[in-house]
């Protein structure tokens, strides 16, 4: 059990360092297991240094930097065992446009490598623009949801009207 945990941890760590560099366009990051008599009780610490900044614990980073780092970790775990579907609900909320663009590029690359189909719920115009297709959810009748295919212009008006 313990050996399998450490092996899987090392694999996640490798993917994590690579994804972080590509999402931040530089910098470095690593995962560490906290002190514990039994690795099975250890906690997961995240250290990150965005380009040009000192290595710090995750808690000292900005809101957007924390989110991007957490996404690198989530997808590092994902890549150790990719599945045919991946659903993301507003994970781009705290990201600025540059980080959103790099994040969507990473999703596109994963889609190509693993064949995973992505469903991405978003309010972000840039994310919408990078999707292969869009569905809009409406509540014409109060409290009752309907789904329609939309193009980018309609989607932009969509997210604006309630």
């Amino acid at each position, binding site marked *: 059990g313990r050996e399998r945990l450490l092996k899987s941890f090392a694999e996640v760590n490798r993917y994590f360092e690579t994804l972080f560099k590509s999402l931040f366009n530089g910098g470095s990051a690593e995962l560490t297991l906290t002190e514990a008599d039994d690795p099975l009780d250890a906690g997961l610490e995240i250290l990150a240094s965005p380009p040009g900044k000192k290595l710090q614990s995750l808690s000292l980073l900005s809101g957007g930097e924390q989110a991007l780092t957490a996404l690198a970790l989530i997808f590092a775990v994902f890549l150790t065992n990719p599945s045919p579907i991946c659903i993301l609900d507003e994970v781009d909320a705290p990201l600025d446009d540059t980080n959103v663009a790099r994040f969507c590029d990473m999703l596109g690359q994963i889609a190509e490598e693993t064949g995973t189909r992505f469903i991405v719920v978003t309010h972000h115009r840039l994310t919408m623009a990078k999707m292969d297709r869009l569905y809009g959810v409406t509540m014409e009748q109060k409290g009752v949801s309907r789904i329609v295919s939309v193009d980018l212009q309609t989607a932009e008006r969509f997210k604006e009207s*309630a």
Partner: protein
Amino acid sequence: MIFTNLKMTGFKSFAEPEHISIDEGMTGIVGPNGCGKSNIVESLRWLMGESSAKSMRGGELEDIIFAGSASRPSRNFAEVTLTLDNTEKKGSAAQFADDDLEITRRIERGKGSSFKINGKAVRARDVQLLFADMATGSRSSGIVSQGKVGALINAKPVERRNLLEEAA
């Protein structure tokens, strides 16, 4: 196995039958606050066998049935169907002869929920194992619910490791 379509009726704000076609690459879901986007995500997690009402913002599992609105009375059941392309017949999917698999979960008020694969009754466990075999499931790393990234950031180191183990 390839996911191709998700259909829901009576599930939360989806009073009427609605569906979303799951195609290659990246599909975006947009709309104003409260229109039902996260409900779509929860319908797939529920179909995959999610048994915790709390993890779907409810108090009991029946909370996922359309409870009525100003414009319409409540419904008595909720049903979600996922269609899978099984032409490759790999892994635990090899047990099914059909090229298409339809997995359905249905709940009726006062009756609890039931699962079917291509019309044949199965147990929740069978559905969970089928998805686990594809490295997916309602708690897998690939299903990132609204607020889950924030929870991972704020989690204590030990909770964080548990979050990841649930997924790995």
